[in-house]
């Protein structure tokens, strides 16, 4: 009974962690699902989103001009909300730029796209180092979501629950967008058969640009939300892209709910192993991946391949 009582907080924590992982993977999933492009720059764009938020929220981010004093003088809440809106838009523009560069690789060996996005990741990371240096920054957050509260004799983080709730909202919003809007229908159709979409008169290049913008904006949002937990450093993107990749493969390439469920599973296993077998905590997600794809190569909810029929 004691064991179950001690396990419960770790289960709750695992779910919260899983939602954060799912948020990190969403943008990655969208781009792979529609465009069949593995965007290795996802992690660097995740980091860039955090840095953009830093610039908007605090003068320590680099914008220290006198005319901006009124902006930094207002409360943290409007600045934080502004960061959640503006930073993803800025990163989305970067994403569109990246998609324009990728166009020459469409229809060719997928390795070209992979190499290009890998190169972009390095350029973005080094660009961050040049502009902001090697050091670490702390993203200020509103007072109401800072600190801890006591429940069941344990201290829990307000921010973590805020981040988990925000992830649920983002997952829900993206699902509604994909399932309930005509644009979402076009994106789904593009993922299924982009030649048919083109034949129906839909501007495929514009669609890809739009999907890339949303996918990279989602990466930025994840970066902003994770910043108070992981910190802001130039290399923080690596911490995002690797689990994102694991989650996408585990959940099934292109599957929205697969990514969400896989994110939760990864969060649970990492959280539980960290509590009881901590030296296995980082390895556990790879073991989970190995276990699932050994028996189900397409992942939990990936499309059935022709060979499997």
């Amino acid at each position: 009974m004691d064991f179950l009582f001690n396990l419960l907080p770790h289960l709750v924590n695992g779910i919260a962690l899983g939602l954060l992982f799912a948020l990190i993977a969403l943008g990655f999933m969208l781009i792979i699902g529609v465009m069949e492009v593995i965007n290795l720059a996802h992690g660097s764009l995740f980091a860039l989103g955090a840095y953009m938020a830093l610039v908007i929220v605090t003068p320590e981010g680099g914008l220290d001009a006198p005319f901006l004093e009124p902006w930094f003088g207002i409360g943290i809440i409007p600045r934080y909300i502004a960061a959640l809106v503006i930073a993803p838009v800025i990163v989305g523009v970067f994403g569109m730029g990246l998609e324009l560069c990728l166009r020459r690789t469409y229809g060719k060996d997928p390795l070209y796209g992979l190499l290009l996005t890998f190169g972009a990741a390095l350029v973005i990371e080094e660009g961050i180092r040049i502009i902001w240096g090697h050091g670490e920054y702390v993203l200020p957050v509103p007072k109401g979501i800072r600190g801890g509260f006591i429940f069941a004799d344990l201290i829990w983080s307000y921010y973590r629950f805020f981040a988990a709730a925000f992830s649920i909202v983002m997952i829900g919003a993206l699902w509604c967008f994909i399932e309930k809007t005509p644009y979402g229908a076009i994106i789904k159709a593009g993922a299924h058969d982009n030649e048919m979409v083109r034949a129906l008169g839909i501007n495929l290049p514009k669609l890809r640009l739009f999907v890339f913008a949303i996918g990279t904006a989602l990466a930025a949002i994840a970066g902003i939300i994770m910043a108070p937990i992981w910190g802001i450093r130039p290399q923080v993107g690596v911490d995002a892209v690797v689990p994102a990749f694991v989650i996408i493969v585990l959940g099934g390439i292109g599957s929205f709910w697969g990514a969400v469920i896989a994110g939760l599973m990864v969060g649970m296993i990492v959280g539980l192993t960290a509590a009881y077998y901590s030296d296995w905590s980082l390895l556990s997600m790879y073991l989970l991946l190995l276990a699932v794809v050994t028996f189900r190569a397409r992942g939990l909810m990936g499309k059935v391949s022709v060979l499997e029929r």
Partner: protein
Amino acid sequence: MKTGITRRKLIQGTALTAGAAAVFGPWKFNRVYAAATDKPILIGLTHDASGQFANSGQAEKRGTIMAIEEANAAGGVLGRKVEYIWADTETTPATGSRVAERFITRDNVAFMVGAIQSGTANAISQVCQKYGVVYFNTNSSSPTESAKNCHRVKFVWDGSGANFAKAAAAGAVDKFGKNWILLTNDYVWGHNTSKATAEILGKLGGTVMENILVPVGTRDYSSILLKLQQAKPDVVATAVGGDDYKALRQQVQDLKLDTKMAWLSNQLDWPDIYGAGSEAAFGVFGATWYHYLDLPGVADFVKRYQTRWPDTRIDVPGNVTYNGYVAMRELLRAVEDAGSTNNISVIKQLEGRVMKAADRMQHHDAVIDPNSHHVQQTIYLATRQDKPRDDTDYFKIVNVMAPETVRIASESECHLESYADTPTYEM
């Protein structure tokens, strides 16, 4: 017609063979070039610019470069200008090995300086020993680097995890209690530091409730922090460094666990905390230097640093920059005292070398242990500064430990290679 070897050919052949043997062998590396006074002394710098210790790597690089520039401003060393080449060792032992090989075999560096991560330092030192290149390990702290991983050519400049543990443990047991949990970064420094902490704790009658391993690259500590709350130890002793430590610290502060538990952080590197505010300096931790030490030379050093590096985010130097600076400065002095860059001559200058406290900006004289090549130096214990003088004042020094009080027995495991087994090297 005569055939066969003539006397002329025999003499020529013997002279050529003797000359080749002097330069190339016969069966060990002997890389010696005639010392040309107009040839710069080239030093290979191995400071991380990426990975877990990127920030610290650049901090120590600022220190080593300052020392080089000051030496050149004073006329160089042995009448020769000191130059450097630098490569990012990526906080990775394999990269450290590769960089060391390239610097020595292709760039012909005279000496090697750097490294924070102990695994990287170990890898570099093995390459340096193979060729006989004197190597100053500026900032790694695994007790093994001056024990079983010691080498004749390697000099370890930072305090080890065992030094810091010995400095802090007795006071922590008395003040907080005997039941400790260890948080251990899962690589050589973490393991050996926690092992040393456990040994010292055992001798003081304490108990290790659990040793929680923290894989390198861990960013989420929520499960570990929940576990700590459930276990309720008297002390949490951490051997977690670099980016891993920054994430841990951020999450501990977020939950205000810094005020709910006693924390012992072994050594706190300045780049790992600078910018986070003085409230981030929780618990008790060790350091080899602090920019607000009331000692001669400290304020001047800080000013020179700020003049040289006006654009860096770390506005004042910390222990990592300090170690880089004093290490490089002492290497260049030893070369000058040796009168040559010959590795054995320089090593003999360094073994047993006493460095005065005032010169080192510390409270006690330091000495390079001739048996382990580890610099035995003052260790400072500090806590959070509750009355900061300014935005950079994070630490309150609570204890100053003389080197002999924090010496550790495990350095007797060090068996330096003999001089005969160390290849001659001179550039």
